[in-house]
């Protein structure tokens, strides 16, 4: 694969989209880092967290006193806190992505009107750079939000189900 060519075309794309596109790229990168972190947690780490809670519960002799119930709640809550970590952040990132796109739209329109006020003309060719700056970030923001949206919902549901399963497994006598 022509790495240099791909890099150049990426640079051209970022150039045409204007500075906001860099922000969207960074945002998408962070969002996907968190999404992958969550997927990795549920794939690999969640099991050991759950097993530790189960083991602690199983090691107790007493499974019905007020103390035991309070400790059970605490175990569930701790696992829940681990499972739901960063989920809100991912949702926020998903919500912010279209806002960044909109920001790009408006800054692009600002540059269109800059061209208009400097050149005093409405030459479509002169304005096309600004229009590209307006439309590309919008599209990129939408794509980033949509790609994140599917996973953020999935992750949220997954966290709830895992916590629920754990609560079922910690049996009260």
């Amino acid at each position, binding site marked *: 694969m022509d790495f240099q060519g791909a890099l150049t075309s990426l640079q051209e794309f970022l150039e045409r989209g204007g500075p906001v596109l860099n922000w969207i790229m960074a945002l998408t990168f962070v969002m996907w880092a968190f999404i992958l972190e969550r997927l990795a947690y549920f794939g690999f780490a969640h099991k050991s967290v759950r097993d530790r809670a189960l083991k602690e519960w199983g090691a107790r002799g007493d499974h019905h006193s*007020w*103390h*035991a119930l*309070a*400790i*059970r*709640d*605490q*175990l*569930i*809550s*701790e696992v*829940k*806190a681990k499972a739901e970590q960063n989920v*809100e*952040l991912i949702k*926020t990132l998903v*919500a*912010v992505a279209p*806002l*960044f796109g*909109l*920001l790009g739209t*408006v*800054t692009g*329109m*600002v540059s269109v*009107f*800059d061209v*208009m*006020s*400097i050149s*005093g*003309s*409405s030459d479509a060719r002169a304005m096309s750079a600004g229009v590209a700056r307006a439309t590309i970030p919008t599209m990129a923001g939408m794509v980033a939000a949509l790609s994140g949206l599917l996973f953020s919902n999935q992750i949220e549901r997954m966290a709830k189900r895992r916590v629920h399963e754990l609560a079922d497994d910690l049996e009260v006598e």
Partner: protein
Amino acid sequence: MKTLIKSIAAASMAMGLVAAPAFAQADREPVNSISQLIDRVRQDAREAEAENQRRLQEFRADRDRQAALLAQARSTLAALEAQADQAEAQFEANSARIAELDQQLREEQGAFGELFGAARQAGGEFGAILQSSLISAQYPGRAEPLLELAESRTLPERNQLDQIWRTLIQEMNAQAEVVTFQRRVLGLNEGQPVPVTRVGPFNAVAESGGPVYVQWTTEESNRAAGYNLTALEQQPPGRLMGAASALLNAEPGEIVAGPVDPSRGALLRIYKDVPDLQERFAQGGIVAIIIAVLLVLSAAFGLFRLFSLLMTTSAINAQKRRSTASKSNPLGRIMLAYEEVKDRPIETIELKIDEAILRETPKLEFGLNFLKLAAGVAPLLGLLGTVTGMIRTFTQITLFGTGDPRIMAGGISEALVTTVSGLIAAIPLLFIHSFAASFARGAQQALEEQAAGIIARHAEEKSAG
């Protein structure tokens, strides 16, 4: 014969008059007889006859002489006429020759006249190009001889004609070069020469501390002061400055990605007209100021809340591991509430703990709703600015028509800048709210779901130990 008789009559009459003295003289020799008289008459007649003959001959000779004179005059006239004809023919031939030579002269000079016209035109046009060319900064004074040539009324000389193509070739050659030369630049280094690197005729960068884009000056006053280059009033943004310093630091022969302004300076000059951040913000009007104030206040408050929630969370986490309750954190206070009632029945304990939790949780949530509100209101304020800006635009369209886009630019700028401000304010506020809310919820969960467990754990440890 008639003439003869007349002349005889005339002669006899004249003789009668003239003859009187003769008769008088003849009277001295008297005529003695008729025969003598007859002789004398005959003799007189013979004499008259002879006289007449002589006169006749005299007349005739005279006539012949006159005729000869006439003939001579005629021949002279003919000769002169011939001469005149010849002269006229010569004249005509000469004037034809003159016309022919004139024509030839015109033809030959016509070609040259066109050449000189073309040379003047080329000199003028090329001189004007040179006068606006960046390359003239390196070779000052190239344009003036060409412009003089264009203005002059006399025929150009050969070295002047040579100057045109020599300068043309020099210009063509210089357009392909990237060279550095020392030159005075207006506004740099107090008029001392600085190294200027020129990229063809496109743009030039001076080195004075850092890279400084310079432009070919068009003002006569600067030129009179000996400056051909001036520093740009507003330097272009960072990316171009980076490229410029790469250009300045490049080794000879090294290939670097450098700036090229195909408009020969016009594009870089536009940066003067592009409003900077402050000017842009001013375009947003009062709505942008409101949004900015909102952002500053909410962000300061949000960061403060974020910091205090962070402290609370870490204090709670520290308290989880310690069995001795501290009054300085929410979990510790809940544990203290338990300590007071730990010997009472479980219902009382639960009630007390719930009470303590209820006392703590509102403190954690304090201000979060305000942050959420601020993050939601900022884009709405932006929208408000958009609409007021559009109202201004349409007012101007109503007043002045749509002829000049510049008239509408003010309102449109306001609309766009306020929208941008609204979004710029909303995005960080959303993030701050999101972080603060997740910290608050973490702490809340710790208090509501884990406080009882932690208390139970410590109680069991105590009773076991």
